[in-house]
């Protein structure tokens, strides 16, 4: 997405079942530890956003892959970029899916919109029959 960022390391996890959601959360929590200077609040927000999006990938995308990257932007700011990709049915109306309270499942309808509010950057790309890709980035405040 952002061509000016540089990835220093990355790791991916297959999302196929409930246990994998736990692995995603644990991995994000682990990567958000020092030397990356996230505050506890930022850490918790990122882990929670990851939990929401990974569950979406599992439930609505029928499974997919999770990628975590340690990124640095042109201003030498460091952050974590998380990508959730699935080959599921895709989202017909993204604007609607991003509305608070809208759900096609039995959830609260706050997963996508809530995750967007929890992180610095959020992007979503989806089309019916083409699957879904959600990317979020959390930048550290201090250097």
């Amino acid at each position, binding site marked *: 997405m952002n061509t000016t960022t540089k990835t220093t390391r990355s790791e991916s996890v297959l999302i196929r079942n409930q246990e994998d959601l736990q692995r995603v959360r644990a991995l994000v929590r682990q990567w958000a530890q020092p030397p990356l200077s996230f505050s506890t*609040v930022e850490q918790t927000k990122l*882990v929670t956003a990851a939990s929401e999006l990974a569950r979406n990938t599992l439930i609505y995308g029928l499974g997919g892959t999770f990628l975590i990257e340690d990124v640095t932007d042109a201003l030498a700011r460091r952050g974590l970029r998380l990508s959730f990709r699935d080959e599921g049915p895709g989202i017909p109306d993204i604007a609607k899916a991003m509305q608070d309270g809208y759900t096609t499942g039995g959830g609260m309808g706050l997963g996508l*919109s*809530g995750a967007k509010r*929890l992180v610095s950057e959020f992007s979503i790309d989806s089309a019916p029959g083409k699957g879904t890709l959600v990317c979020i980035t959390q930048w550290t405040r201090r250097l």
Partner: protein
Amino acid sequence: MNKNATDVANVIARHKADILKEWIQRQKESASSLSGIMSSEDALEQSSQFLDLFSAALNEDPSAENDTVWGEVRTMLESVSRSRALQGFSPSETATFVFSLKQPLFQRLRQESKSADTLADAVWAMTTLLDSLGLYTAEVFLRSREQVILQQQQELLDLSTPVVELYRGVLALPLIGTLDSERTHSVMENLLEGIVHHEAAIAIIDITGVPTVDTLVAQHLIKTIAAARLMGAECIISGIRPQIAQTIVHLGVDLGDVTTKASLAEALKLALAKVGRGIAPLKTGTGLS
């Protein structure tokens, strides 16, 4: 090759007592912890049994490929390996059980063999054989460890979520760990049953030990509270840490009319007030009845 193996089996048969004694000595030296954890009788019994099976199998089929003949040896090693894994041995200490047989065995072979060629052949054959058996114990060892890990995982999942009575009519439900759907169901059941059993008016759900509160967890909590309310009990959520509070707000989750407190102590104070009780310092000098 075949003759070699039978020769080796004969050597073992003739010197069994000596080999056994030295072998056990070797085992004890190489694994210092062994003497502590395992009784000498166990070590002796296992070693002796292995020697018997090993030489019997050698007589039958030296290539160690015949499953029916070597199956017994393998089964025996499996049980040794498994019991050691459970006793806390390391993989190398377990494999040493087999490897340490080499020295006493080769020494006897050297005494008995007539030419350097036959000795070299026999040593090579035995070394290959014992190496593969030793590696096999390590493999089984790891497999048993994995089973232990799986079992522990299951136990962690099954960790009961106890409902405790703090005061007459006041229950507490300390939640710890991830609230996936399965665990939430048992949590909800436990709480509702506890409410009936203790005739509780107030239930405090403490989430200090819950690392992530996402929309699913929040939804489960709200449903649990609604169900408790239907049964006439009021719920208080306690243990909401600052970062969890901020995350809930950003997610847009509305906890609405649910009473929340930062700490369990605060929640208890409120709960007691609701049942018409309070906590006061003891008056000194008054006799205890």
